[in-house]
């Protein structure tokens, strides 16, 4: 079609724009490199070529600015990715975290030169304690998964400290996020998979059979990744505690219950939070996050270091000296401090009033969408349950009748200007869409989203091939993932340049 954009400037890789004889940057110091290298031991010098691109400054700006436009993001699109809490990231959080006084501080600067940032972290610890009902919080884990590792490692440290070394198993529901079983294994445990009943609750009978003196603990999230609240949580907690196990809470879904119910009150012994979800620090195309852990009194001695403490009006770092039973360090310093700072700023802006509303409107939006989808003829995975902040559609009917599976719906949604919900997770619901609208989306946008799904459903009925080839309007058409995995091309210079 001659009518369409025939861009002459190819979508190049930065390496393709490079010429090693180009010298165009204003960014490096003026220096005679060869003269300096003479002072270094010859046999340790780099002999191999340094294949970094040499591109003009303007050309670099243009390359990455144009690339950015090829992303969907919260700032540009509705992004109802279930379990991921893609909500508004207020810009001020980033602006303030980048202030030179914060951004320029070296982690080993003397604590007398670090009181500002330490006060922020200390207050954040306190706010997270209140929000979760836990006794103490350590901020160091750098993402949810590292929080999980920290939590399970503390469970293990607790049992080890009690010389209770027969406990070799961690129970994980089948609906759990993949990080849960992977974490249990990293902590040296065997994973026991716990089934879910048709109401989306844990199968209590199965659990009864599973537990015993070998049980180190159970990892749960509540509301679960099925988007429903585990009503028997107290009973489960009692059962686990009775056999001497501990309860781990995966806090990825905290957005659903902030200010409504606290993990501490449900009986959990340890919890991680995903600040990049509930506390709105940016996802950044895959991180950085922050996964602080909170513990009940029982596990307090095992918390990872460093933590911030306050004495005589001075903040100081709590280290292994003060916490001899600590499981230790998880990062060289205080984890993703700049992300913690963003979460702190967000918490100040929300205040206690705003935090309550997070759960309320996240839940309102989810239940509204659920009902609208039900009315539009989509099948809800757990129709008798309230949605928490998210819920699940199953497109198995559509897959059977029209041959259009969840992936096809997802790809077609992109053409309509919506990021797709989470697909094929949790694994136990066939052809599933896990939909999490979050509290910051407006009703009109939710309505447009339903409308798009209705139109796609019609397309599926009338011309299913349209879905199967979608998307059409994005920078690329549907990608060949099989080829990607079979003919690995992970490094430009390796795969193309030679």
């Amino acid at each position, binding site marked *: 079609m001659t009518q369409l954009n025939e861009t002459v400037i190819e979508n190049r890789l930065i390496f393709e724009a490079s010429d090693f004889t180009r010298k165009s940057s204003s960014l490096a110091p003026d220096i005679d490199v060869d003269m300096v290298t003479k002072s270094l031991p010859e046999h340790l010098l780099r*002999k191999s070529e*340094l294949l970094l691109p040499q591109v003009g400054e303007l050309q670099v700006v243009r390359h990455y600015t144009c690339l950015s436009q090829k992303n969907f993001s919260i700032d540009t699109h509705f992004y109802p990715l279930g379990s991921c809490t893609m909500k508004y990231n207020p810009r001020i959080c980033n602006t303030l975290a980048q202030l030179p006084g914060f951004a320029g501080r070296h982690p080993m600067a003397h604590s007398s030169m670090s009181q500002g940032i330490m006060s922020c972290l200390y207050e954040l610890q306190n706010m997270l304690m209140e929000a979760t009902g836990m006794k103490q919080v350590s901020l160091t884990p*750098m993402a949810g998964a590292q929080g999980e590792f920290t939590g399970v490692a503390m469970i293990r440290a607790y049992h080890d400290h009690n010389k209770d070394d027969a406990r070799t198993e961690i129970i994980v529901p089948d609906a759990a996020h993949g990080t849960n079983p992977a974490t249990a294994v990293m902590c040296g445990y065997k994973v026991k998979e716990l089934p879910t009943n048709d109401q989306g609750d844990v199968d209590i009978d199965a659990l009864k059979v599973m537990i015993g003196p070998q049980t180190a603990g159970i990892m749960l999230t509540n509301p679960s990744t099925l988007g429903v609240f585990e009503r028997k949580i107290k009973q489960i907690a009692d059962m686990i505690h009775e056999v001497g196990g501990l309860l781990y809470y995966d806090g990825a879904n905290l957005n659903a219950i902030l200010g409504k119910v606290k993990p501490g*009150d449900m009986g959990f012994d340890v919890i991680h939070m995903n600040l990049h979800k509930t506390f709105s620090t940016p996802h950044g*195309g895959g991180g*950085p996050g922050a996964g602080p852990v909170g513990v009940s009194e029982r596990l307090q001695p095992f918390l990872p270091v460093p933590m911030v403490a306050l004495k005589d009006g001075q903040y100081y770092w709590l280290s292994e000296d003060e916490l001899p039973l600590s499981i230790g360090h998880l990062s060289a310093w205080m984890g993703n401090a700049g992300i913690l700072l963003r979460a702190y700023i967000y918490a100040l802006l929300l205040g206690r009033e705003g935090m309550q509303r997070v759960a309320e409107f996240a839940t309102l939006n989810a239940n509204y969408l659920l009902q609208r989808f039900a009315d539009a003829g989509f099948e809800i995975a757990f129709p008798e349950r309230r949605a928490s902040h998210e819920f699940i559609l199953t497109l198995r009917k559509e897959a059977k009748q029209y041959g259009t599976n969840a992936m096809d719906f997802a790809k077609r949604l992109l053409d309509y200007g919506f990021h797709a919900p989470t697909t094929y997770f949790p694994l136990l619901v066939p052809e599933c869409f896990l939909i999490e609208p979050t509290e910051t989306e407006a009703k009109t946008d939710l309505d447009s989203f339903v409308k798009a799904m209705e139109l796609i459903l019609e397309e599926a009925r009338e011309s299913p091939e349209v879905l199967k080839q979608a998307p059409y309007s994005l920078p690329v058409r549907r990608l060949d993932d099989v080829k990607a995995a079979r003919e*690995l091309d992970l490094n430009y210079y390796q795969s193309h340049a030679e």
Partner: protein
Amino acid sequence: MPYIPHTSQEIAEMLSVIGVDSIEQLFDEIPPELRSDGLDNIPSRQSEMQVQRLLTEKSMQDGTPLCFAGGGAYEHHIPAAIWEIATRGEFYSAYTPYQAEASQGTLQVIYEFQTMIASLTGMDVSNASLYDGASALGEAVLMSVRANRKAKSKRIIMPATVSSVYRQVVATIVKHQGITLDIIDFDRANGTIDIDKLKQQSEPFAALVIPQPNYFGCMEDVHTLTDWAHEQGAMVIGLVNPVALALLEAPGNWGTQGVDIAVGEAQPLGIPLSSGGPYIGFMACKQKLVRQLPGRIVGRTVDLDGKPGFSLTLQAREQHIRRSKATSNICTNQGLMATATTLYLAFMGRDGLQKVAASCVQNTQALIDLLKISPGICFPFGTSVFHEFVITLPTDVEQVIEAMAEEDIVAGINISQYYAQDGLENALLICVTETRSPEDMAFFADTLNKVISDLTGGARK
């Protein structure tokens, strides 16, 4: 209602569609006895203006000292364009690129990141980032044990010239996998791995870690070390500073075969110090180990029309597919930092990075020359350094650091806290990068001399 766009009419309409009377009713599945009564210990909301003022004050309350500390976190000049572009909403507020077609921006950036890390390290493939340098080293240890089953050992040789905090983090991470970390002492004269002691090792081991430059800023004899370890049937993990690699040989070319896994902290490539994080761990390896690599990997492929595009690949290694059999539990990593790093390397280019590195060497040497004539200051190690070096002081190092702080200088790191038992008393690790001017260095030297003189009662003069 900040951040809540609902009007009261919309709320009413939504409740009526759902068929409930109040939002409260939507929480009716939560057992009433569990419901909490609010968040009293959280302060009341503040406006953006108030928060901005508060945080601005907090950010300024500790001044903006001159920084001479390194030890794993380095102050470099960060071109302004980097964070202007990296924090564009489309990068900043996107999720992990699960929907490839709607995430080509992030995916291509990561592909370019992988290529650049592979280039820098001289390795075949890189992943999309790990949390930080320390945890990356932990993952590398786990990976080497997974990959080197024929060594029939879960023993790792970990030199004392690796940062003590890194060693602590590795210990925490690998603790439950039956792995032992054996520390190898350093040579007192050179501040590098004691090769003689190393060669006395007779037990089999899975991998040797080689830092370059090492924690003292000194350069290890990486070629000899790499070849020796390989001869023992062990793998080699290179722990490298990415800026130094502009001048020093890439781990992929150490010895005759190069290392098996290269890891490090990419913070020096465009990431602000910001109290220690977020930073970004990198990991690259030989092609044959790619299926053992933890974390995300982006591959180039084609779309339905044959047009090139990018997507996450080899996901079968990952927790969300493999669950309890995954190579790691890592999920969210440091995507935005990878974007910034890619931008940094693209802006600096090969020449720029070499100049930054050379400037570090030159400035460091200049400060060493200044301090050499300072009374009472000793240089325990003779080896040449990249941008860090150790001195020992004639008086209490903590007191010196505190006195320097009074003059708005971060003097360096007291490494006696880690190495006192090794005879390194009152030892200070000092770092100088391209950001320090000749005036800064003169000010540092003068202040240090004065502080020492004050603390020692001027006696040594």
